[in-house]
């Protein structure tokens, strides 16, 4: 656990990717940035470019059109990188589970670090999930849990 790993966990920049979601999860993600929840307290910022991102937030049932694009975005993220699946659709395809258009859940396409269930999850749940992500990462890199 070096100083760089420590700084990494204190300034996670998130990139928001909607893979055909109904926008409910996206609105809840934006809620995290508003005055009431304000995730900039933890140093998290929403970035517009995947090259600046540390965390990929994925919402929505992963449809056929999106799968190659998700893979490409994941490969474009600089290491170290983390992935968070937000909402029932990204976790298990939700109501689209029998759809011809959604052949795979997200974690069969790219590795996922944290799953945040809910339809949509509340902003508090998203923040709790991100805290779990930080704890998990700390455990992996050999620092005690907070």
């Amino acid at each position, binding site marked *: 656990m070096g100083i760089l790993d420590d700084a990494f966990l204190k300034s996670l920049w998130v990139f928001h990717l909607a893979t055909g979601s109904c926008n409910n999860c996206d609105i809840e993600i934006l809620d995290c940035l508003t005055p009431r929840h304000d995730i*900039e307290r933890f140093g998290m910022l929403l970035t517009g470019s995947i*090259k*600046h991102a540390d965390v990929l937030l994925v919402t929505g049932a992963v449809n056929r059109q999106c799968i190659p694009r998700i893979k490409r975005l994941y490969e474009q993220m600089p290491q170290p990188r983390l992935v968070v699946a937000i909402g029932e659709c990204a976790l298990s395809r939700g109501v689209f589970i029998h759809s011809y258009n959604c052949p795979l859940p997200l974690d069969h396409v790219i590795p996922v670090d944290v799953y945040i269930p809910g339809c949509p999850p509340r902003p508090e749940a998203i923040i709790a999930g991100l805290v779990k992500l930080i704890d998990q990462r700390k455990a992996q890199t050999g620092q005690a849990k907070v």
Partner: protein
Amino acid sequence: MIYLLYLFIFGFLLTGIIGLFASWIDRKLTARIQYRVGPPLLQPLNDILKLLGKETLIPSGAAQYTFLAAPLIGLVSVMVVSTILWVNNMNPQQTFIGDLIVVVYLLLVPSLSVIIGGFASGNPLASLGASREMKLILSYELPFILAILVPVIHSGLSIRLGDIMATQAQYGIIAFSWSGGLALVIAVLCMQAKLAFVPFDMPEAETEIAHGVLIEYSGTLLAVYRLTKHMLLFALPFFIIMLYLGGIRGNGLHLLYGTLEYVGLVALLSVIRNTNPRLRMDQVVRFFWGPMTILATIAVLLALGSY
């Protein structure tokens, strides 16, 4: 050897630390204006450290060496310019004739490095951002140089920063004269454009062209760009304080006044940035070449008439 020490300690370390602190003030103030809590004090430092630990990607379509060199050009020029400013501020008699012109040129180089990096990265959005940055430079440079002419005229047509500061130490600060006050307002607005803050953030417009020129930069190179920006956030207000407000003198109450002036200027930049929408390119060019240039010309004429 002593100059290298100056370059490292004052030009890099001190400027970097103050710049990081200034960017924290900016972010915290932004958060407070929006009724948020805002980031902790060490947040800008953590961002830089994190970026140093990330992978640096070079796009396959990029001009490799230019892409790698562009951020360093900007960083080195900011280091040199802040060293010149620090030495001037500590010992006004030690510097050379024409350092004002050198400073004005070197303050342009970070913008040029952004343009070079944007075009070298081979991304259409970055090219768009770089071309916007170029137009931005063309629009703000004219009123900026006219505004700088005002202190030059006040100090008897001397192009040494030391002479300008000595004049202010002797006859009172330039900003209290009519021409000086007008020039200060123009210089602050040009500084806003030089830093590419809202309303002049077209080159980086996050919501429109996704960070524009910086879109392909990652890891260490992005850290260098961000550090350059933070250091400019120190160098530019410091330059303006030296030109119009008599510099920061290191004894007792003057140091307090100088610090307050600096923090006030950073806060002013932040407030302007948080209360304005982004302008279009043609509006910016019209703004700077129209009202600003006319006001700057009036300020120069007033200064020539010794008002």
